[in-house]
């Protein structure tokens, strides 16, 4: 038995506080509008799975745990957390996530408080769930199936004030 790490979280560009401070300093010195290229929304993606456990009352319950040993057929819960790290409000926030390769979107699983959710079969054209159609070989249209969804987009209806945090989530099974 080997305690292997089967989930890795590579932090591609966490803007450390030190870096952030440095960036602000440079922009201030150069007299450039600081919002121009500074990143205000920090985005974090994480993979979790549901775990059944017995709570302290002896009842069966479910909780989310970091994705461990994933095999075909398992369901992964993807959570994308957004945080406004700037002093000013961020507006028109849109989070987008392609359903990862080797995975299939689970029907009706996308959620995000305060968002309008749209879906895409090709990553280009997005539509709401009830307007999403797929083309048949003969050119006719039909409602799209969940398994055909390859990208999801969450559009926030309200701005993020300074320090605001929100998350969106969906489930996908490993093919």
């Amino acid at each position, binding site marked *: *038995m*080997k305690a*292997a790490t*089967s*989930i*890795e*979280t*590579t*932090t*591609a*560009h*966490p803007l450390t506080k030190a870096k952030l401070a440095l960036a602000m300093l440079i922009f201030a010195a150069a007299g450039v*509008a600081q*919002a*121009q*290229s*500074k*990143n*205000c*929304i920090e*985005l*974090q*993606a*994480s*993979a979790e799975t549901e775990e059944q456990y017995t709570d302290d009352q002896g009842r069966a319950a479910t909780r989310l745990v970091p*994705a461990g*040993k*994933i*095999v*075909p*057929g398992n369901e*992964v819960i*993807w959570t*994308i957390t*957004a945080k406004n790290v*700037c002093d*000013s*409000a*961020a*507006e*028109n*926030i*849109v*989070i*987008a*996530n392609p359903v*990862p*390769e*080797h*995975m299939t979107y689970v029907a009706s699983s996308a959620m995000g408080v305060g968002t309008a959710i749209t879906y895409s079969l090709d990553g280009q054209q997005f539509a709401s769930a009830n307007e999403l159609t797929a083309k048949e070989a003969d050119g006719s249209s039909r409602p799209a199936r969940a398994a055909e969804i390859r990208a999801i987009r969450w559009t926030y209806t309200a701005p*993020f004030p300074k320090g605001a945090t929100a998350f969106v989530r969906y489930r996908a099974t*490993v*093919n």
Partner: protein
Amino acid sequence: MGLVRSIAAMAAGLALGATALDAQAAGTAAGTSIQNTAQVSYQVGGSTVTTSSNTSTVTVVEILDVVVTIASPTVASSVGATQQELVFTVTNTGNGSERFELIGLSAGVTGDDFDPTLASPAIYFDTDDSGDLSAPDTAYIAGTNDPNLAADASVRVLLVNNIPASAADGSRGRSQLTARARTGFGDPGSDFSSGGLDAVVGTTRAEGILFGEYLVQGFQLTALKSQTIQDQFGAERPIPGARINYRIIVTPSGTGSALAAVFSDAIPANTTYLAGSLELNSISLTDAGGGDDAGEFTTTPAPQVRVNLGDLTTTSGPQTIEFAVTIN
């Protein structure tokens, strides 16, 4: 066979494009990294910014699954027969390459009438892909040549038994094959590690168990021959010129059938076949061959009568053949 199948699967995958890699029954291959990066766009102070998240990675581990199938669940055999094979196929339905242990069991499989005896060796690979036990087939030696199957690959395995002389006609004897993932088997969800890669037991318990059955068919044809003599003086003396009437009753017994049974009987030395005397079930048959009816008299290679009895089972009942000769 496994190799051929996996090449075919690969070819199909190429034709269908990248996502077809997931089209195999086993699912996404063990060791595959699933990576996810989200994007966000927003406006601050009138400028639009787009940025990405970290890349979150999930690695698919090996799922251990195996399925055993049998070509014919029941095979006909006979009392005392040796080297009788049951033809199984072991398929790796997991998502990674895996070695499987094979186990044959004949004593104590429940639900049958007798225990076949495992031959030694008892398990062979159908090396020449002939579907039966033949000279080129390689014997299986546990731990030495365990089949190593890629995801979705399969191997044909022969389980070989001898049928005891005590097995009764119409009785059934079972023999079963078990295939188990070498990495581990047991309750679904049990985890094991395999060559540095984690492995989890799937819904098949990573163990395939299936029995086949030998049906002993003690089908027999018994022939009872009787004769009467009529001499030319009205008596029953076997003198030259006397006629001997032969009657042969062929009786099928036991289960099963004799396909295209042919009765033949040589004309005894110092006698001559009496032309036109051949009968089957009291119906005259011509002496001519060539299929005008079921019977014929022929002198090739030696004088004899022949009657085609067709397919015989016990329901066919006794078949009575009559012919006559004269003593020279």
